């Protein structure tokens, strides 16, 4: 049984939940896996922190929450501070480079990838799609799911009138991710 735990974290309005939904949907609807998505609710989260969790598996998921994420995606410094210690030592950490400064405290062995998703989204004309940029990037650097599956999940999750924009956002993130993998960009602020 292979299980992958993923946490997405940022602040309200960044579309963190949507990212988790897209990944979860890609896995269980567009590939033949199982996935469970949960999100942190809470009055304390009013305009504050937002986080979502996805567990992917080749068998039905029993335990619904993430305890030690294989992959952590963070889009805010507070989220980084709170969640980065949880990542497994063989895990992946993905950050929004303009919003998160990666400290040296990251466990050795953790692969770290960064993308200026907000900036890329702004270049597409709509800051709002930063989450889909991030999703594209995620798809590229993790290689967890087929790009086609995630693309379909994106299309299935956004309103009709914005399908095009979101597709472009996905591709932008995906392309950036491929470049990062090739080593042709590095864009990580570290303290």
């Amino acid at each position, binding site marked *: 049984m292979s299980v992958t735990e993923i946490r997405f974290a940022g602040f*309200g309005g960044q579309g963190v939940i949507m990212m988790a939904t897209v990944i979860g949907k890609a896995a269980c609807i567009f590939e033949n896996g199982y996935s469970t998505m949960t999100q942190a609710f809470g*009055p*304390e989260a*009013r*305009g*504050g922190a937002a986080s979502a969790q996805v567990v992917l598996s080749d068998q039905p998921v029993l335990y619904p929450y993430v305890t030690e994420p294989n992959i952590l995606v963070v889009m805010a410094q507070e989220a980084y501070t709170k969640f980065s210690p949880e990542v497994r030592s063989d895990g992946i950490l993905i950050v929004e480079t303009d919003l998160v400064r990666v400290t040296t405290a990251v466990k050795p062995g953790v692969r770290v990838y960064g993308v200026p998703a907000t900036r890329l989204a702004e270049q597409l004309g709509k800051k709002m799609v930063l989450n889909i940029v991030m999703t594209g990037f995620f798809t590229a650097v993790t290689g967890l799911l087929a790009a086609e599956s995630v693309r379909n999940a994106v299309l299935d999750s956004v309103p009709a009138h914005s399908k095009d924009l979101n597709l472009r956002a996905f591709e932008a993130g995906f392309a950036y991710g491929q470049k990062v993998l090739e080593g042709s960009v590095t864009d990580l602020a570290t303290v």
Partner: protein
Amino acid sequence: MSELVSLHENPTEQFLRTDRMPHIWCPGCGIGTTVNCFTRALLDSNANLDKVSVVSGIGCSGRVAGYLNLDSFHTTHGRAIPFATGLKLARPDLDVVVYSGDGDLFAIGGNHFIHAARRNVDIKVICVNNLVYAMTGGQTAPTTPGDALTSTSPYGTFEPSFNLPQLAEAAGAVYVARWTTYHVRQLAKSMFEMFNKKGFAFIEVLSPCPTLYQRRNKMGDGMETLRQYKELSKRKDGASTSEVGLTRDGEIVVGKFVDRDRPDYATLMKAHYQHTMGDKYVETGAIICQ
């Protein structure tokens, strides 16, 4: 200047449970603004702060009690007024303020509102009206005006909303005013007046909820709402309450609408028992068990 800064404290500070800051309210939320006005009014009133109790129900606005460094009660949804009624009748020496949201006071709590107003219980009710149930995610409230989008009215609301000042007056309130969070000075003054009024007093404060009302309705952020308040508000003291109903983006009539005198519940009770029972009546001040 830096020296002075450290010497001078924000006047609200002494009223806050600073160990609970920052609060949970969103950027641009108006609830905090109303708290400023409340604290200024309390300061002006020279009230003994040990003798002021604040009672809230549940909601974003209902969290006020938890942030005020006074005896404070975060009760159940809708029941702040009857709790306050019990507290005030047992402790006539306390100033009892109910501070809560529009959903809390007028949806689930509507019955208690009209009955406390009828009885003219000597409590002060401040309603932060953000036109929506914010805490639970932005559902339609009995105050949601016109054709607004909410999470339970995804195609827009169509229900008529309450005219709160009219309801308050019809039920019996002795003091009724409406302001917005743009009217900080007027609101503070009105709250001060309310403290000096004996009986059931009611202030409605329109307040932005950028996160769950404004955003969904593409009305911008808190700032944009304040600008709208400024633009649309018209002060009409003494306006007939039947004419101050709110619409989605029409005029907002603000001012003091009702200020009348009627003996409050405890006074009526005392006078009545003195009259009917004479010597046998044992008048009680504060009811405190041994």
